[in-house]
Structure formats: structure tokens, C-alpha cells
């Protein structure tokens, strides 16, 4: 889409957007971080996790899918928005088995990092669902621990749109919906460790595991040892 750039406001800050840009894309370019889990650079937007929900002229919308519009007034980094996000993130912790102390993704995990950013100090309000899903270590190079999956769908989009394979897909409905592989197990799919879907940047949590790499990055050198999630975007403004 072509056309004139326009201005809208996020938390009172004037942001310039191009026609067709989502609120999140324009915010990223302007150095304003909008929390997100299911959205990642290089994959189509989904609007599934709702962590990026902002108020746009009073309506709740997902910033990763909602196009920016001239003069739009967006409420993002406010106590009310962040409280809702914290609730969402907390529920994700309750839905899965997120044992950060023993997870090799710890320090590189976006869920963990989001919890830190949103100051989720405890997750005790809801009953834990404690899923008991068998770890799929059938593939020689990749393992899947879907007890840690947050159903963000990033692996599904990466496999379909980038790799052209469709290794992953959703099965079930509602609370029972989960990510599954297109085969009896991962070894019976055409998954390869070189797939984009298997890259460390795609799975935000410790569900997709590249074998024999765990804990090789020392504490202090992990991605989120260097700053809160979103700090790279925010540093553009500083």
C-alpha cells in the first residue's frame, strides 16, 4: 500500500506510520515496545496471544494485527493494560509446566522474560493444569516438550510459510487446543534442524529443543541477561 505517512499517538507520544503498517510495526520503528508473545519478526501476524492488546480510541485491539490510523489514540504502557497482560502471562504459566530453574531456555525464554517485564512475581492465583504430555525425543536433532508450549503458533507459521512443510499444526478446540506434529512423532515428519521453525528465535519458550545445545551459553551471556524483553526496541528511542 502506498500513500502519505501519518501521525498517531501511543501513550501521548506522536508516532509516524506508513499506510498499511500495524500499530506494533509503527511502534517498533518509533522505539516504543508493545509486549507480544505470538508475534515475531519474519512471520505473518496472528493476533493470538492477546498480550499486545492495546486500547485504540477506547477499543481493545491486538496491536500486531490492527492497522495504525491517522490521529488514533493508543493506550499501551499503562497500569491497566499491563495488569491485563500480566494476567494473561500468569495464566500461561498455570496452563503449562514452566519450571524455569531447570529449563534450558531460561534466560532466553520470552515467556519468562515477559513475566519479569510485567513484574509477575508469583503465579499462585489459579490452579495449575499440570499437563502430562510425553516428551517427544524421537528426532535425532530435535526434541519437543509440549508441556512448555504456549500455543503461540509461531512454529506453525514458520513451518508452513517459510519452510513450506507444515510440520506443525493445531489439534483440538478451546482449552484442549494444542500444537501437534504432522506424524506419529517428530521423527515421522520431514522436520529438519535447519528448518526456520526449529531455529531458536521461533519458539519463544523451551518447547522446541535443539538437541545437545542446552546450557552451552553461560549465565550472564544469555539474551535476557542483557536487559528486559523489548530493550532493543526501546533503545532506538534513547
Amino acid at each position, binding site marked *: 500500500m502506498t500513500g502519505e505517512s501519518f501521525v498517531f499517538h501511543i501513550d501521548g507520544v506522536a508516532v509516524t506510520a506508513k499506510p498499511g503498517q500495524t500499530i506494533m510495526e509503527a511502534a517498533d520503528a518509533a522505539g516504543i515496545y508493545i509486549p507480544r508473545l505470538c508475534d515475531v519478526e519474519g512471520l505473518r501476524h496472528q493476533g493470538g496471544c492477546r498480550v499486545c492488546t492495546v486500547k485504540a480510541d477506547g477499543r481493545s485491539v491486538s496491536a500486531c494485527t490492527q492497522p495504525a490510523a491517522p490521529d488514533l489514540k493508543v493506550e499501551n504502557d499503562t497500569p491497566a493494560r499491563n495488569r491485563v497482560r500480566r494476567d494473561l502471562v500468569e495464566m500461561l504459566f498455570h496452563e503449562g509446566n514452566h519450571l524455569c*530453574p*531447570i529449563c534450558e531456555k531460561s534466560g532466553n525464554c520470552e515467556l519468562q522474560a515477559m513475566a519479569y517485564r510485567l513484574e509477575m512475581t508469583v503465579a499462585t492465583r489459579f490452579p495449575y493444569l499440570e499437563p502430562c504430555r510425553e516428551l517427544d*525425543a524421537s528426532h535425532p536433532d530435535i526434541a519437543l516438550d509440549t508441556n512448555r508450549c504456549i500455543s503461540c503458533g509461531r512454529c506453525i507459521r514458520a513451518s508452513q510459510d517459510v519452510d513450506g512443510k507444515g510440520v506443525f499444526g493445531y489439534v483440538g478446540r478451546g482449552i484442549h487446543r494444542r500444537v501437534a506434529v504432522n506424524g506419529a512423532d517428530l521423527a515421522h515428519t520431514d522436520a529438519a534442524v535447519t528448518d526456520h521453525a526449529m531455529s531458536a528465535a521461533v519458539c519463544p519458550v523451551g518447547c522446541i529443543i535443539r538437541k545437545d*545445545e542446552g*546450557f*552451552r551459553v553461560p549465565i550472564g551471556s544469555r539474551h535476557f541477561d542483557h536487559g528486559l524483553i523489548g530493550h532493543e526496541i526501546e533503545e532506538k528511542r534513547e
Partner: protein
Amino acid sequence: MSETRLIEISPVTRVEGHGKVTIHLDENNNVDEARLHIVEFRGFERFIRGRLLWEVPVIVQRLCGICPVSHHLAAAKAMDQIVGVDVLPPTAEKMRRLMHYGQVMQSHVLHFFHLSAPDLLFGFGAPAEKRNIFEVIRENPELGLRAVLMRKFGQEIIEATAGKKIHGTGAIPGGINRNLDIATRDRFLAQVDQMTGWALDALGIARDYVLGHLEMVEGFGTFPSNHMSLVREGDGALDLYHGRMRAVDRGGAPIFDMLDYNDYHKVLVEDVRSWSYMKFPFIRDLGPEYGWYRVGPLARMNTASHIDTPLANAAHRELQALTGGRPNHTTLANHWARMIEVVHCVEKIRELLHDPDLQGTDLRAEGERRYEGIGVIEAPRGNLIHHYKVDERDQVTYCNLIVSTTHNNEGMNRAVKNVAVQHLSGQALITEGMLNHVEVAIRAYDPCLSCATHALGQMPLQIEIYDAEHRLVDRAGQCM
């Protein structure tokens, strides 16, 4: 109706973990039976099954918050075998050793100053409110400060090698994930002289306590036993990180020597008794009655031919001289032995800090995959065995852990009974101070009951006294 009683000390305090002691008294108030019960349930060996092999050193260290490094390294050594690595790159082995010496130092300092010093300084029968680290600090602020700073030094060594003071990630199958930068090395080197001096002072306190109370110490919870530990391959020197297994009998004669620890199951058997979650290992050839043994600092002093650092070696010779070179069976001499090891650790830390291999960049080796691995290390409390099997999918299918406190199970029970007979038999009125004597004997082994049974939560140890009708008549449960 019988006049017999059963005493329960529950919880026993200033130990790591949750357990209780029961003491059965007969009609004449003589001790009929005394047992240390470990009432936690262990679960790690079961729930580690199915996990991926490189996760194991990180998961199993959660057994303990005091010496997680021991479990981390024992598991890593087992996983080294599974990834086909028998010899680590020098940087990896030396970083692991540095981590371990920092760990043993901080754990021993914690035990000596924070847990046992109140008994040694104020007396076993001192009022309960007096027997704690805060009173140690109040009465001797300089000593208290040293205790804190020595532990801090050890913890910071761990942080520099594992990333965190507790539950880090340094050791990975086949190696280590970091080296030591020059600035950190120099920060430690600047402190190492002071740590050496303070370690020698602590050694002096422990030695003087034993020598100054020799008659009492030699009679307190003392009994002959076998002793077992790793020793360095070849010369039998003390080696806390790696070596071969050596066991000696009560007179010092070898039971087995230079045994490849991969064959531990050929010489050790784990017995089970109905009243404790903790197993009772014994040496197979000697049977359960004569084959039990002790591990830990004093056992290491009894098995090691010598120590390869000069200050600790001199102290080792002095300890050995006390028994004419034969094994020392004195329970309270564990404190002396423990402080000798603190001196040794500081000496080894100094040696390693001067070694340029710590700045090497070859951190990890690879080999041909195997499906079984055994890692053995000398943890602060004694010999620690981790044994795993892993399938072709990299998932754990079998795990067996024999931790130091488990090795010492029979020895601690003997010490409990010995001290109970000495201090409770014939007493119509059992005071809290008398019961603390029992705890002092247990503490000398620095047991980690949570390691031995792998539980979570708040875990004090309790002593209970029951009569012959199995009615609880008294309980000593100090919480602090």
C-alpha cells in the same frame, strides 16, 4: 503398665534436611534402642526418567541448596561418559575443580561456623537460645565476620565458574560453558592470602577443640568402622574431584583399593529398612553387619595417603599422629578433618588461579555416544555416586544416586545410639541439653537429609521419646 519410655527428638536442628530421632528407654530408663529416621521421601531417581541427558546436571543439583555443585558435577561426570568423553579439555576440568573447591570450602565453613560452632563454643548442654550463629557473632564478632566472608569467597568462586552462587549451569556434558576472565581471577587472587590465614585459624580452632577436650571427644560417639572415599589414581592422595575408590577397615588395612568407580555396584550394596526412607549401603564382601562404612572429611583423612598441598598435608600428618597413623574413628574429629579440607581447598584455589589453563577457550570435547554413565565425586559430606542410563533418544531411563549422608546412615545411627547410651541411660529426667548431645553427634557428620531423600520444604530434624507401649512421652523439636 510399663514404666518404659520412648523419646523423640523432632526436629533435629542445625542439619540440612528433615529427620527425627527416636530413643526407646526400658523400665530402668536405660536406652534400649536409638535410631535416626529420615522421614522425607526421595523422588529424583524416578522423575528424572524421561528427561534429556544434558538437562540432568541442572535438574539434579536441585536436590540441595547447600552443595548443589556436588550433584551438578557428579551428574556432569556421568554425562561426560555418555557423550563419550573420558578426558576433558584442561580448561574444563580445571574450571570444574575450581568450582568444586569453592563449593567444599563454603559448605564446610557453613557447617563449622553456622551449625556446629555454637555447640563447640558454648557447650553441648548450653541453653538452646544460646546455641545459634547469632550468639557466636555476638560473643565473637571477628570470628562471625570471618565465617561470613569465607563462605562468601567460596560462593563467589562458584558464581564465577557456574554463573550463580546457587544452582548455576557451568558444567555441561563433555566440558564447561565458560572460562575465567583475568579480572575475576585477579579479584580472587587479591583475597586468597587472607583466606589462607583465616582457614588456618579455623583449623586451629577445630584442632585445639579436639586436643583440648581429648578425653571427652574420644569417648563421644566414637566407634570403629570401615572408611571409604575416592583417592587420586596412582599415589592415593586426597582428591575431591576425581580418582579411584579406596576403602580401609578399622585398622587401616585395605578392603579395596584403586577401584574403578564404574564398578561401584560390584562392591557396594544398598540395604533397605522399614523405618527410614534412607538406604543402608554396605560393602558386599563383608555383608551388612560388618560391611558398613563411613564417608566424609574424617574418612578421607583415613583413606588418603597424603594431601598434595603443603599446609593441609602438615595438618593431615598431625591428625594422623593422634592415632599413630591408624584410622581415626572419633566422630567429633570430623570437625578437625573438615577444616583441614578448607585449608586444602584454599591452597588448591590459589594453585588453580595461577594456572593459565583457566583462560583457555577449548571448553568442550566430543566422543562416541554411550548409553550408561557413572559420576563419582567427593562432596563436602563424603562420597557421592550418580549412575544413569540413557537411551538412543537421549532420554534418561535409569538413575541411581548414593549420596554421602546415605553412605553414613549406619554410622550416624551408631553415633546416635552411642551418645544416647552415654548421656541418657539411667536418667529419670531427660533435659533438652541432654538431647542436644545426640544432635551434636549427628551434626558431626554434617548430614544433608534432603540430599539423602531428595525432598522439598522446611526440614528440621526432631527427637522423640516413646515408652515401651510406643506412647510418645517427650519430644524435643527446636526450630530456629
